């Protein structure tokens, strides 16, 4: 585990730097203070972790459904591709604060606007990867299905969808990794709880150990969501080869 060794070394250096007084612990708390904040603030952190997890997971699910519908529509119907593809790409340029005001106005401070923001960020890698996967099918296999007079839907179900599955999972894993930062951005723009909210409040109160503890949990949440999809991928894709 070279990664683990590197982390241990870095943590040691970090601890030494802060304890040696080279950096003010208000700016950079020592790893041991972060660890003790993790323990002492467990009730606050746990509740906020749950809130953010629910936002990220629901947003991911919404993004998966939306991304699949858009990708299949673009694949099957070229007017949909011409109409939707530029909008799909453009959607990633939308600054979240610009969206936040109308979303809060329409949907309030609760869960729904966060799910919408997460879904908006996450549907992009899912759509683009699935769409590419559907298009990049082996031409010989496509020819075979045509020779058997497969209908459009049969070609999709028997050939294109399974062939696109590995790429779809790539999209889902990327989406899982960015869903957490999506939830944090959403919470920054108007919320009463969640780890993003906690980070914002703790920063203002100079509770730097708690801020870092919350960040550590965000890090772990992203890894866990990514790992869940990686596990699902290994269960679903049992074959080898193109």
């Amino acid at each position, binding site marked *: 585990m070279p990664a683990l060794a590197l982390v241990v070394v870095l943590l040691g250096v970090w601890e030494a730097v802060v304890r040696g007084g080279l950096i003010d612990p208000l700016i950079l708390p020592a790893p041991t203070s972060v660890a003790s904040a993790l323990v002492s603030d467990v009730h606050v952190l746990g509740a906020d972790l749950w809130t953010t997890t629910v936002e990220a997971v629901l947003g991911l699910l919404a993004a998966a459904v939306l991304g699949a519908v858009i990708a299949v529509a673009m694949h099957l119907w070229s007017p949909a591709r011409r109409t939707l593809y530029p909008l799909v790409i453009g959607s990633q340029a939308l600054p979240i604060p610009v969206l936040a005001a109308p979303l809060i106005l329409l949907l309030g401070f609760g869960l729904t606007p966060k799910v919408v923001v997460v879904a908006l960020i996450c549907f992009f890698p899912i759509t683009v990867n699935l769409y590419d996967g559907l298009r990049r099918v082996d031409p010989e296999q496509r020819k*075979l299905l045509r020779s*058997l007079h497969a209908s459009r839907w049969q070609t999709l179900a028997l050939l294109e969808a399974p062939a696109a599955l590995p790429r779809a999972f790539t999209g889902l894993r990327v989406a899982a990794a960015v869903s957490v930062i999506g939830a944090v951005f959403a919470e920054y723009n108007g919320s009463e709880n969640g780890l993003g909210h906690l980070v914002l409040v703790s920063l203002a109160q100079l509770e730097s150990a708690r801020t870092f503890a919350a960040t550590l949990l965000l890090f772990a949440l992203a890894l866990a969501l990514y790992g869940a999809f990686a596990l699902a991928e290994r269960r679903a894709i049992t*074959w080898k*080869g193109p």
Partner: protein
Amino acid sequence: MTTVADLHRPQQDQGAGVAVDGAMKAFGDVRALDGLCLRVAPGEIVAVVGPSGCGKSTLLDLVCGLAEPDGGSVRAAPATLMPQRDALLPWLTAEDNAGLALRVRGASRAEARAAARPYFAPFGLAGFERARPAALSGGMRQRVAFLRTLLAGTPVLCLDEPFGALDALTRVQMQEWLAGTLAREPRTVLLVTHDVEEAVVLADRVVLLSPRPGRVVEAIDVDLPRPRRRSDHAVVDLAARALRVLGLGA
């Protein structure tokens, strides 16, 4: 002008055969076929041999109704293509790959499997029903692909360089195996290959094509008893004659 829909309607006068009259096909500036004429009688095995890029695969596309000729006519009984390489779907088991044509025609997964399974033992695939293509040898993959083509149930089979990707020894085994299988399950076969010995071993007639744009240079009747072997004198002589016609060999 023949439409794609017409191609799949068996023609009264053709029975289970194939009739290609003056077929023209171009891709942009590249003329693949230039007035190609070819007939395959019902039950006949015709091998088409020619240099790379002479339009052999295009010919099969026309016969299978995957493309329309720019000129001339192509009439054929329903035909199933065995594409170059095996085109097996890696996520399906061998039996599901073999029964793919039946699934497409509306059979359930169980029905398609039940139809495919009895062929596994005679095809030398016993025990590999549930294996994925990645777990099969090259020769076994070709046999599954051929079974898939056979189970489509069309009178005409179009085989596009079926053994081109195999090593030399496996190829010889597979040629003998295919000859035996076609003796038991007679079909009208249009076989595209660039191996003249393979053509002579398997076919009733060998049609030699010119370099692109492809036209028929000569058709050689193979009146040799079966089973034939690549090492038979008569096979070697005919193959040498075919190579001379193609402008190769002494």
